[in-house]
C-alpha cells in the first residue's frame, strides 16, 4: 500500500528540490518565439515534400505496396505540414536550440544521420515526443517541463531517432495496410487476430526504439540511468509536472476569505499504474514492462558504460530551458481554455518566482478566463444547442470533488465549488493587486476592467454591495468568542481568522444578510482609481440595461426590423481596404477513402487554388489581401511566422468563448499587430467538401421509366452526392468582435473550381463594396 505513495512522493520531491535550487533568473521572461531563418521544412509546400519523398519508394516491391507507400508519403507529409504550418511549433527558439544541441551530442558519431534530423518544440501541454519519416522530431513543451536532467532528454531523443532511422512510421503504415487487406502474414488469420497482431507489431517497434535508443545513450556518454527517469516521466504523464500545495489563501487577505467548505481538506497523492501486462490494443508496451526491459539491458552493461554524465551540453541551459517550458505551459493552458490548470501551474511556479511579471500577468489572464466561463449563463434553447455548448466548452466542467487526487485537482475543485459572486470578487481583488504592481501594462488593466464588468453585468453587484469599513466584520467575528466550541477552531486570533470561523460556522441569523465577500474591497476602496473603475463598470451595466429596456419596449415588428438591419449590416458590404487571411483551411472528404476519409491530394490542391482565387478576386475588386501562411513566406519571414502563431492562438481562444464574452487575449499585442499589418481586419476561413453515395437509389431507378427526366435521373444514379461547406469570419482584432461572416451549406452541388472561385470572389467583393448607410 505504501509503496506507490512513497514512489510518487519521491518522484515529486526530487524535481521540487532541484526546482528550488536551480532557479534561473526569469525576471524579464518574454514568451517563446521563433528566431533566425525559417527552415525548408516549414517553407516547402506539401506537394514539394511529397514529390521528394516519393523518390524513396522501393520499386522492387509489389505494386500494391508501392501504392501504399506512395499514399503514406502523401498522407504523412500532409499531416506533418498541418503541424508545421499552423504556428504550433517554435523554430530556432532557445528551447529548440538547446534540444538540437543535445541531439548533436547524441549523434556526434553519426553526422550523416544528424543532418537528416530537425527537432522542433511543439507548443502543447501534452507530454509527448514523436518522429516522422522525414526526420522531423517534435518534442512538446509539456515533456520539457517534466525532465529532471539532460540525459533524460537525450534518451527521449534517442528513442525517436531510432524510430526515424528504422523507418518505423512507414513500416507501421505498410503493416496496417497489409492488415486491412489481409495480405502477407495477415493472410491466414481472422480480422480480430489481424488487429491484435498489428498492435503487437507496433509494440515491438517501441521496444526496438527503447533498446537501440538506450544503446545510443550509452554510446554518447550520457548516464544510462536516465532511461529509467524518462519512463518515470511517462508513468506520470497524465499528471501536472508538479504537485505543489495549493491553498485558497492566494486569493485572500485581511478582509476577504472564502468559506472553508470550498477548499478540500486533503488531497490524495498520485498513483502509479504498476500493471506490467500489455493491453492487446495498446500501441506501446506497458511502462513497467519497458522499465523492466531497460533494467535487463542495463544489467548487461559493464565497465565505464554504467556511468556517464547527466549533463553534456549545459546544466545551466537545461534548467533555464525547463523553467521556460514551465512558464510556457502556464500560458498554453490558458490558450487552450484550461484556466484552472493554468491557475494551478502558475501558483506553483510563483512559489519560486513570486513577483514575476510574466507569471502575474498570465495569472490574471487565467483568472479572467475562469471568471468569464463561470459566469456564462446556462441558457440553451434545445438539446442540440446544449450538446453544442458542451462540446464547444461553453459549459464549465464541474470539477467538484471531496477528495481530490493531487493538488491540481484540489485547485480545480476549489474553483468549481466557489460561488460566482465570491469568485468574481476574488478575481477582481487579484487582478487589481497585479494592476497596481504593473500599472503600465494595458492588458492587465483591460482584464481588470473586464472583471469589474463581469461583476456588475453578470453578477449584478454594485459598489453599494460592499462595505468601506470592516466594523461589521469585526463585530460578527467577535460573536464566536462567546462560543467555546468555536473559539477552539481559531488557529490564530486575528479579526480575519475570527471572520473565517464565523462564516464557516455561524448560522444565517447570526450573520444577518452579510455576505462573506462584503468586506473584500475595504482596502481597495481607499484607492480612487479602483472606485472609478468600479463605477465605470456600473455605468456600463446601466447602459446595457437601458439598451435592454429599449428593446423590451419595441414591438415585435420593430425588433424583427432591427434584427434584419443587423443581419444585413453583418452579412452585407463592409467597405474594407485590406484584409489579412490567416492559414486558410481547405479539406476534402470522401466516404470511399478509409482512415479518416480525408482526400489529401484534393485537400492540398484545393488549398492552393483557394489561396490563388482569394488573391485574384481581391485584386479584381480592389481589396488589399494578404494570406498569412508559411506557403507564402520565405526564410526571412520569421516575424510573420511568429505573428501566425499569435493569430492562431487568438482564433483558438475565440472558439472557446461565446460571442459577447470577454476574451483572455493580450489585446495590446493584437493592437500592435493591427498597426503592423495596416488593418484591423483578419479573416478565418474554411472550405470543406464532402463526397458520399447518394441515397434513394431504388426510387431513382424507378424514375428512369419517365423518359423526359431520364437523363437527369441517370446522371444522379451514376454520380455520388457532393456537398460544399464554406465558412468565413472577419474579426476586428482591436475589438475582438466579428464584423462580417458568411456560412454556406451548398448541398448536393459539385465542388467545382468555378464554385470555389465564385465564393472567393463574392466574399472579397462583399468585403470591398462600400458599406450601406443605416436607415
Amino acid at each position, binding site marked *: 500500500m505504501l509503496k506507490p505513495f512513497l514512489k510518487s512522493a519521491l518522484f515529486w520531491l526530487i524535481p521540487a528540490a532541484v526546482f528550488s535550487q536551480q532557479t534561473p533568473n526569469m525576471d524579464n521572461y518574454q514568451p517563446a518565439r521563433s528566431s533566425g531563418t525559417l527552415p525548408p521544412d516549414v517553407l516547402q509546400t506539401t506537394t514539394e515534400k511529397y514529390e521528394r519523398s516519393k523518390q524513396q519508394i522501393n520499386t522492387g516491391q509489389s505494386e500494391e505496396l508501392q501504392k501504399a507507400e506512395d499514399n503514406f508519403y502523401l498522407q504523412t507529409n500532409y499531416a506533418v505540414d498541418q503541424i508545421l504550418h499552423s504556428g504550433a511549433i517554435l523554430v530556432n527558439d532557445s528551447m529548440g536550440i538547446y534540444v538540437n544541441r543535445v541531439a548533436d551530442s547524441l549523434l556526434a558519431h553519426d553526422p550523416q544521420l544528424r543532418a537528416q534530423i530537425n527537432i522542433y518544440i511543439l507548443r502543447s501541454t501534452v507530454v509527448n515526443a514523436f518522429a516522422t519519416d522525414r526526420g522531423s522530431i517534435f518534442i512538446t513543451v509539456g515533456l520539457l517541463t517534466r525532465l529532471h536532467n539532460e540525459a533524460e532528454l537525450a534518451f527521449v531523443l534517442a528513442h525517436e531517432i531510432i524510430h526515424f532511422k528504422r523507418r518505423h512510421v512507414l513500416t507501421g503504415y505498410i503493416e496496417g495496410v497489409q492488415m486491412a487487406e489481409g495480405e502477407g502474414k495477415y493472410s491466414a488469420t481472422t480480422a480480430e487476430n489481424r488487429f491484435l497482431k498489428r498492435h503487437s507489431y507496433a509494440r515491438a517497434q517501441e521496444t526496438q526504439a527503447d533498446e537501440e535508443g538506450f544503446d545510443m545513450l550509452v554510446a554518447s556518454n550520457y548516464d544510462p540511468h536516465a532511461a529509467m527517469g524518462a519512463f518515470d516521466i511517462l508513468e506520470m504523464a497524465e499528471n501536472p509536472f508538479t504537485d505543489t500545495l495549493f491553498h485558497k489563501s492566494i486569493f485572500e487577505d485581511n478582509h476577504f476569505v472564502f468559506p472553508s467548505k470550498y477548499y478540500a481538506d486533503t488531497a490524495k497523492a498520485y498513483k502509479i499504474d504498476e500493471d506490467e501486462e500489455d493491453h492487446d490494443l495498446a500501441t506501446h508496451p506497458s511502462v513497467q514492462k519497458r522499465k523492466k526491459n531497460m533494467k535487463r539491458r542495463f544489467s548487461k552493461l559493464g565497465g565505464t558504460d554504467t556511468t556517464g554524465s547527466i549533463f553534456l551540453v549545459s546544466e545551466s541551459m537545461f534548467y533555464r530551458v525547463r523553467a521556460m517550458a514551465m512558464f510556457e505551459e502556464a500560458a498554453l493552458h490558458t490558450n487552450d481554455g484550461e484556466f484552472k490548470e493554468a491557475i494551478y501551474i502558475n501558483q506553483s511556479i510563483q512559489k519560486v518566482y513570486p513577483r514575476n511579471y510574466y507569471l502575474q500577468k498570465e495569472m490574471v489572464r487565467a483568472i479572467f478566463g475562469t471568471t468569464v466561463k463561470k459566469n456564462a449563463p446556462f441558457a440553451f434553447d434545445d438539446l442540440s444547442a446544449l450538446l453544442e455548448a458542451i462540446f464547444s466548452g461553453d459549459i464549465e466542467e464541474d470539477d467538484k470533488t471531496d477528495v481530490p487526487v493531487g493538488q491540481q485537482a484540489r485547485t480545480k475543485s476549489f474553483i468549481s465549488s466557489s460561488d460566482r459572486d465570491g469568485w468574481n470578487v476574488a478575481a477582481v481583488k487579484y487582478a487589481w493587486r497585479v494592476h497596481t504592481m504593473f500599472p503600465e501594462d494595458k492588458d492587465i488593466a483591460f482584464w481588470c476592467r473586464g472583471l469589474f464588468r463581469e461583476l456588475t453585468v453578470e453578477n449584478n453587484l454594485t459598489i453599494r454591495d460592499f462595505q468601506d469599513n470592516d466594523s461589521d466584520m469585526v463585530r460578527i467575528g467577535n460573536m464566536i468568542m462567546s462560543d467555546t466550541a468555536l473559539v477552539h477552531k481559531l488557529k490564530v486570533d486575528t479579526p480575519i481568522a475570527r471572520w473565517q470561523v464565523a462564516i464557516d460556522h455561524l448560522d444565517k441569523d447570526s450573520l444577518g444578510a452579510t455576505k462573506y465577500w462584503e468586506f473584500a474591497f475595504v482596502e481597495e476602496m481607499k484607492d480612487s482609481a479602483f472606485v472609478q473603475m468600479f463605477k465605470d463598470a456600473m455605468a456600463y451595466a446601466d447602459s446595457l440595461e437601458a439598451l435592454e429596456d429599449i428593446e423590451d419596449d419595441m414591438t415585435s415588428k420593430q425588433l424583427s426590423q432591427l434584427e434584419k438591419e443587423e443581419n444585413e449590416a453583418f452579412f452585407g458590404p463592409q467597405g474594407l481596404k485590406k484584409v489579412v487571411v490567416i492559414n486558410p483551411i481547405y479539406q476534402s472528404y470522401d466516404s470511399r477513402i478509409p482512415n479518416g476519409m480525408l482526400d489529401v491530394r484534393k485537400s492540398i490542391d484545393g488549398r492552393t487554388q483557394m489561396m490563388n482565387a482569394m488573391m485574384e478576386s481581391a485584386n479584381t475588386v480592389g481589396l488589399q489581401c494578404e494570406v498569412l501562411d508559411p506557403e507564402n513566406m520565405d526564410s526571412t519571414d520569421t516575424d510573420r511566422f511568429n505573428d501566425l502563431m499569435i493569430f492562431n492562438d487568438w482564433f483558438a481562444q475565440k472558439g472557446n468563448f461565446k460571442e459577447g464574452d470577454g476574451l483572455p487575449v493580450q489585446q495590446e499585442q493584437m493592437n500592435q499587430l493591427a498597426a503592423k499589418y495596416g488593418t484591423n481586419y483578419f479573416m478565418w476561413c474554411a472550405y470543406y467538401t464532402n463526397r458520399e453515395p447518394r441515397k434513394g437509389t431504388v426510387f431513382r431507378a424507378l424514375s428512369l421509366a419517365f423518359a*423526359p427526366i431520364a437523363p437527369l435521373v441517370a446522371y444522379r444514379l451514376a454520380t455520388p452526392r457532393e456537398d460544399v461547406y464554406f465558412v468565413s469570419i472577419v474579426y476586428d482584432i482591436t475589438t475582438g468582435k466579428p464584423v462580417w461572416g458568411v456560412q454556406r451549406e451548398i448541398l448536393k452541388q459539385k465542388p467545382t473550381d468555378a464554385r470555389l472561385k465564385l465564393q472567393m470572389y*463574392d466574399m472579397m467583393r462583399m468585403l470591398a463594396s462600400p458599406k450601406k448607410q443605416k436607415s
Partner: protein
Amino acid sequence: MRRIILFLAIVTATGTATATPIKGGYLGKRIIVNAEMSYMPNYSSWKDLFMSYNFQYGGKVHVVTGRFTEIGVSYNRYSLGAHQRYDTSLSNNGKITGYQVGLTYRKYRKSRGGLAPLGKFVDVNLFYHDDKYNVVYENIQTFAPVIHKSRGISGSIGFGTQGIFWDRVVGNAGVRFGGPIYRFFEEKSTSDIGNNFDYMQQRLMYKDFFSVFFGVGIIL
C-alpha cells in the same frame, strides 16, 4: 413585333447598365449567351405521352444583375407534330410551328448555395408567342391552304441548376412548368373541314405545361 424587339433591347441595355463591375457575377463577367433546347411530352394521347416529344430550341442572352439574380431575353422556335386521324378516309399530318420571345428573371437559390451565375436557380419566364398551324390532309384536296394562326402571352416557372466549365462555358439543365396566360389574336382558316383549330389550341395549351431543358452558353 418591332415594338417588342425594341422593348427587349431596352431591357437588355438597362440590365447591362445595372451590372456595374462591383455588382458583377462570375468574377466580373456579366453577360451570358446561351443556346437552349427543351423538350416536352405530347399530351395528345397516352401513347403520345410516352412516345412522342416536342422540341423547342433557341437562344438567350442573360445579364447578371446581382449576387443572386439574372435577367435575360430569349428567342425560341418550336415545331409540334400535329397528327390527327379522324376516320378511315381522313387524316391530318400537319405541324404547329412558331416562335416566342421572352423575358426571364432568374433567382439563384441562396439557401441551396447558389450564387449568380452558378448553382441551383428558380426562373420566371414571360413569353410572347406567335403560332401557325399548317394543316395537311393526306387523302383529300382542299381548295385553299389550311393555316390557323394565333398569338398570345404565356408564362412558365423553371427549376434548374447551372455549372461553369473552363471559366467560360456554362451548362444548365432543369425543368419548367407553365402555360398560356392570354391569347389576343386568333385567325381560323375558313377552308378547314375538321376541328383542327380546337386541336391547335389544345396542343398549345399544354406545350409549356411541363418541359425539360438543357442549355450551353458562353460567358462574355
